[in-house]
């Protein structure tokens, strides 16, 4: 019984913590974020499995985690409002070459981050060449170049 409780508790806890920590963490923008993701997996393992090294325990944990994942995605489709809370909404961070300061501050993005994404995804050189930059729900920044 406790394998199921642990799995659900840890899944929900991780979900909430990552959701409120902001989109940058999800997109692994910096080395900090990447290292964090590596280490969190390790920290979670012991809590999930406890002292039980049996295959049965592993199976129960895996099935429960996948089950909760499926349940969450089904719930999200059924209840549209939930989608907003779970996934968030996109945020426009650059409009017609001009950064939207408020939005960028809240998203913890700076102009360098935007320009980097513009270079790597569109081969753009300057901020003026960006028509729109949108911080998507996934944490990735999509760049729409000026025609």
């Amino acid at each position: 019984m406790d394998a199921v409780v642990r799995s659900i508790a840890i899944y929900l806890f991780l979900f909430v913590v990552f959701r409120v920590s902001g989109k940058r963490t999800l997109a692994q923008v910096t080395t900090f974020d990447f290292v964090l993701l590596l280490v969190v997996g390790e920290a979670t393992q012991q809590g999930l499995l406890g002292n039980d090294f049996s295959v049965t325990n592993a199976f129960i944990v895996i099935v429960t985690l996948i089950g909760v994942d499926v349940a969450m995605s089904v719930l999200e489709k059924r209840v549209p409002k939930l989608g907003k809370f779970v996934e968030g909404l996109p945020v426009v961070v650059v409009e017609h070459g001009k950064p939207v300061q408020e939005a960028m501050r809240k998203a913890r993005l700076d102009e360098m981050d935007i320009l980097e994404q513009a270079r790597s995804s569109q081969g753009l050189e300057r901020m003026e060449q960006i028509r729109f930059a949108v911080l998507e729900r996934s944490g990735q920044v999509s760049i729409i170049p000026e025609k």
Partner: protein
Amino acid sequence: MSHDGLEVNDSASFASSEWRVQRVAWAAMLVVVVAALSGLFGPGPLSHETVASDDGRLRADYLRFARFGSPSALNIIADPDLATGGLLELRVSRDWLERMQVENVLPPPSDVTIAGSELVYAFPVVEPGRRIFVTFEVTPDAIGTASASLGAAAADVEFAQLVYP
């Protein structure tokens, strides 16, 4: 929100509330870290406690807040006059012992007997006149409050531990 031809379903009000929730969550995370450092969730200044019998002859150092599956120690200090006939007989409540996995008792007792709701650990005392130190290395096996009562001769102590999951 309209953005000159860009079809995107953003929302200024949602972004604002999301930001506020984030800030509250960050503050909460900070509180959790400070609480953990201070021992609210396990070993730490808030958690290390000592309880002594009325006459002060028996003392127990324990963790007020412990965690399931996380080893901790119970240190008992007894005055030499609590030992009779070269033996310190320490009574430990079974209720507490059942909630703990006893990994080790230092020094190893010469005898452990069952006396109703208590186990009596007998420790031979070679040097009479010196304080006696006994350590129970335990790992909590059950979540929730674990109440213990210990006694030697006429001195008794009681304490409770909260075991986090």
